[in-house]
C-alpha cells in the first residue's frame, strides 16, 4: 500500500491535467453545459491529490530522510543524456500538501465565486493546468525539468491574470507579468546551462542523472574546481534573480501588484499561496549549491529584508484591498528569503507553509468583501462587521495570523527571528522586526477600514456571501489557527537544513521583544485607524510621503523612464542596423535568386525547342569541361 502511494505519485500532478483535458474536450464538443461536472472534475482531482499527498506524508514520517526518485530517459545526444521523472522527499511532499489543499479550497470557492461568469469552464481549465504545472514543478527531480514547469507555471499565471482579457488593464497586467518573468526565466536558464557546462564531467562520472538535485553539492565543488569563484557567483546570481522575479522581490516585484487584475481566487491561489512561493522553493532546492557562495547568500538575505521592509511601508498607504494584500505577500516572501539567506532553511519553509494558508484566507475574505460591496477601494468601506460578521471574523483571524498575534504566523516569524539572531545578523534582525511591526499596523489598518468605523460607501444592500463562499474560508481558517501550535516542533525535524545547523541559543528576550512589538503595533493601529482613516496628520512631509508610497515608491515610473528614455533609443539604432544590414543581406540573396529564377523561367516555357537547346548547351559544356581536363592531364603526362 505504501509502495503503491509512492510509486504512483505522478498521478497527483496528472489528475489535474486529465481533468483539464476532459473539460476542454467535452466543452469543446458541446457535450455538456453543466458547470457542476466541471467543478466536480476539478475538485475531485485536487481532493484525490491531497489524499494521495497525505499518504506520501505518512511514508515520509515513518522513514527518516525519505527519498524516492524515478527517472525516465528522455533525450540522449552524444555525451548528454537528459531524463525526466519525479522526486518524492520531505520538501516536495510538503509543497504537494500545500498546493493541493490550498487549491482544493480555492477551487471550491471559485465554484461559487465564478458561477455567473460566461467563461466558467475556461477558468477551470486554466486552474487545472496551473495545478498540473505547479505539482510537477514541486516534484521535479532535476533542474531542467523544473525549468520546464517553471515556464508552464508562468504561462498559466499569464493566462489567469489576463482571464478577463477584454479589460485593457488586465491584458496589460498579464503582459507585464509575463515579460518581467522572462527576465528571471532567462537568468534561470542561463544558470542551468552554465552549471551543466562547468560540471559536465562531474555528472558523467558520478553516475547521477544530469542536473539532479541530489548531487548539487558535488556539482558545486566541481564548478568551483573548474572555474573562478566569480563565475560561480554569477551562476548563483542567476538562480537568485530567477527566484526574485518569481517571488516578487525588489526590484522585480512590480508585476505582482498588477497581477491583481485577475479574478480573486487566482490571486489567492497563484499570487499569494503557491506560484510566488516557487521562487523560495527554487532557492530551497538549490540551497546546497548556493551555500558555497556566501556573497550570493547575503544578497538573498538583504534583498529579502529590504523587500519585507519596503513592501510593508508601501502597504500601509494602499487603499485598494487587493493591492494592499499583494504588497503584503511580497513582504512576507521577503521574510522567507531573508531566512534562507542566513541559513534558516527550515524556518523559511515553515513560514512558507503558514503564509500559504493565511494569505489564501485573507484573499478569499477580500474576495467575499468585494463580492458583497462590489468595490475594491477600502476608503468606501466600513462598518461591514455588522452586515457580514462571518467574513469579518475570518478576516480578523487572518490578520492575527499574518501579523503574528499568537496564531500561526507568530510561530513561523519567531523561527525566522531566532535564526537571524542565531547567526548574529543583527542589522537584518532589526529590519525584520521593524517590518513585523509594520505588518501589524497595515493589516489592522485594513481590518479597521473595512469592518469598523463608519460606512462611507453608496451601496445600500449588501450581497451576503452564501455557504459556497463561507465553507472554503472556514477550511482555510483551521490551518491558519492551529498550524503554528501543532506543527512548530515536528517541522524542525521534518524539514532539516541540508547542511550543519548552528545550535539554537536560548533567546527568550526575542520572544518578549516580538510580543512587545505586537502590543505596540496594535496600539498604534488603534490610535491611528480605529475610527476610519482620516487625514489626521497634516505634516506636509508625511503627505508627500503618502503620495510617494501610494504609487509604490515610483518603481513603475522608474522602469517606464528606463524603457522610454534608454531602451527605446537603443532599439531605434538597433532597428536601423536590422533594416539596412541584416535585411540588406537577406534581400541581396533574395535578389540573386530572383535574377537566377528569371533566367531559368525564360527557358522553362513549355516549348520543346527551349528544352532541347538547354540540353544541347549542357552537353557542349560537359564536353568542354571533359576535354579541358583531358588535355591538361595529357600535357602533364607529356611534360
Amino acid at each position, binding site marked *: 500500500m505504501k509502495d503503491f502511494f509512492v510509486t504512483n505519485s505522478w498521478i497527483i500532478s496528472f489528475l489535474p491535467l486529465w481533468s483539464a483535458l476532459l473539460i476542454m474536450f467535452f466543452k469543446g464538443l458541446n457535450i455538456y453545459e453543466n458547470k457542476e461536472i466541471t467543478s466536480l472534475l476539478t475538485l475531485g482531482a485536487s481532493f484525490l491529490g491531497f489524499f494521495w499527498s497525505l499518504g506520501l506524508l505518512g511514508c515520509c514520517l515513518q522513514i527518516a530522510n525519505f527519498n524516492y526518485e524515478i527517472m525516465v530517459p528522455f533525450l540522449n545526444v552524444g555525451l548528454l543524456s537528459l531524463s525526466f521523472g519525479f522526486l518524492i522527499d520531505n520538501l516536495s511532499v510538503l509543497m504537494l500538501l500545500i498546493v493541493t489543499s490550498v487549491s482544493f479550497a480555492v477551487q471550491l470557492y471559485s465554484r461559487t465565486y465564478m458561477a455567473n461568469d460566461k467563461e466558467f469552464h475556461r477558468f477551470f481549465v486554466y486552474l487545472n493546468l496551473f495545478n498540473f504545472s505547479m505539482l510537477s514543478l514541486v516534484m521535479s527531480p532535476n533542474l531542467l525539468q523544473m525549468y520546464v514547469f517553471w515556464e508552464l507555471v508562468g504561462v498559466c499565471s499569464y493566462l489567469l491574470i489576463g482571464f478577463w482579457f477584454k479589460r485593457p488593464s488586465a491584458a496589460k497586467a498579464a503582459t507585464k507579468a509575463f515579460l518581467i518573468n522572462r527576465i528571471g526565466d532567462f537568468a534561470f536558464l542561463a544558470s542551468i546551462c552554465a552549471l551543466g557546462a562547468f560540471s559536465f564531467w562531474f555528472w558523467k562520472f558520478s553516475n547521477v542523472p544530469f542536473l539532479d538535485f541530489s548531487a548539487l553539492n558535488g556539482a558545486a565543488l566541481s564548478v568551483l574546481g573548474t572555474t573562478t569563484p566569480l563565475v560561480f557567483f554569477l551562476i548563483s546570481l542567476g538562480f537568485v534573480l530567477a527566484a526574485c522575479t518569481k517571488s516578487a522581490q525588489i526590484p522585480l516585484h512590480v508585476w505582482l501588484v498588477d497581477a491583481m487584475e485577475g479574478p480573486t481566487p487566482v490571486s489567492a491561489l497563484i499570487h499569494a499561496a503557491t506560484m510566488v512561493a516557487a521562487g523560495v522553493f527554487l532557492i530551497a532546492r538549490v540551497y546546497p549549491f548556493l551555500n558555497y557562495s556566501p556573497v550570493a547568500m547575503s544578497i538573498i538575505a538583504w534583498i529579502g529584508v529590504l523587500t519585507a521592509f519596503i513592501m510593508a511601508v508601501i502597504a500601509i498607504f494602499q487603499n485598494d484591498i487587493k493591492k494592499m494584500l499583494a504588497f503584503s505577500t511580497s513582504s512576507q516572501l521577503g521574510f522567507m528569503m531573508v531566512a534562507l539567506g542566513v541559513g534558516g532553511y527550515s524556518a523559511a519553509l515553515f513560514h512558507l507553509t503558514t503564509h500559504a494558508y493565511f494569505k489564501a484566507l485573507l484573499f478569499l475574505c477580500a474576495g467575499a468583501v468585494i463580492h458583497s460591496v462590489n468595490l475594491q477601494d477600502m476608503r468606501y468601506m466600513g462598518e461591514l462587521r455588522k452586515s457580514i460578521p462571518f467574513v469579518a471574523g475570518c478576516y480578523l483571524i487572518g490578520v492575527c495570523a499574518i501579523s503574528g498575534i499568537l496564531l500561526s504566523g507568530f510561530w513561523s516569524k519567531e523561527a525566522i527571528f531566532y535564526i537571524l539572531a542565531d547567526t548574529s545578523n543583527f542589522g537584518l534582525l532589526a529590519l525584520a522586526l521593524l517590518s513585523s511591526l509594520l505588518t501589524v499596523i497595515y493589516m489592522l489598518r485594513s481590518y479597521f477600514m473595512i469592518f469598523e468605523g463608519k460606512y462611507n460607501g453608496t451601496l445600500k444592500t449588501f450581497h451576503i456571501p452564501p455557504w459556497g463562499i463561507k465553507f472554503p474560508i472556514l477550511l482555510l481558517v483551521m490551518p491558519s489557527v492551529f498550524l503554528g501550535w501543532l506543527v512548530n516542533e515536528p517541522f524542525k525535524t521534518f524539514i532539516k537544513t541540508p547542511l550543519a545547523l548552528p545550535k539554537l541559543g536560548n533567546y527568550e528576550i526575542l520572544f518578549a521583544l516580538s510580543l512587545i512589538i505586537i502590543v505596540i503595533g496594535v496600539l498604534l493601529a488603534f490610535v491611528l485607524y480605529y475610527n476610519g482613516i482620516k487625514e489626521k496628520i497634516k505634516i506636509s512631509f508625511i503627505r508627500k510621503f503618502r503620495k510617494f508610497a501610494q504609487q509604490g515608491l515610483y518603481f513603475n515610473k522608474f522602469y517606464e523612464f528606463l524603457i522610454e528614455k534608454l531602451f527605446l533609443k537603443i532599439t531605434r539604432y538597433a532597428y536601423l542596423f536590422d533594416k539596412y544590414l541584416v535585411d540588406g543581406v537577406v534581400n541581396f540573396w533574395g535578389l540573386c535568386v530572383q535574377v537566377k529564377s528569371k533566367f531559368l523561367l525564360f527557358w522553362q*516555357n*513549355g*516549348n520543346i*525547342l527551349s528544352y532541347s537547346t538547354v540540353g544541347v548547351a549542357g552537353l557542349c559544356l560537359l564536353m568542354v569541361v571533359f576535354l579541358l581536363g583531358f588535355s591538361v592531364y595529357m600535357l602533364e603526362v607529356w611534360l
Partner: protein
Amino acid sequence: MIFDISLIHYLVLALILFCIGLLGVLTSKNIIRLLMCVEIMLTSVNINFIAFANYLDLGNRLGDSVAIFVMAVSAIEVAVGLCILICLANYSNNMNIEKQNKTGGRK
C-alpha cells in the same frame, strides 16, 4: 596533302552536316523542317559508319549493315513523325512549334 582523302575528311564532313542538322533542330519553327533536319543528322551518322567501314574494316564492312538499319529506322521515324504532324494539323491547325507549349512551364 590536300588531295589525300583519308578518314578524317569524311569525319569532318559528317560533323559539319551533323552540326547543320542540330542547328536546324534547335532553331527551326516549322515541324516539317525540323524533321528534315533530323534526317540530315541521321545521314551524317551513316556517312561516318560507311567511312569507318571503308577505311578500317575493309574485310567485313560491318558499318554498311548498320547503315542499312539506320536507314530503316529513319524511314520509320519519318513516317511516324509525319503522322503525328498530320494529327497535330487536324488538331490545332498550327505548324509553329513555339506555339505548341502544352508541356507546362510558364504560362
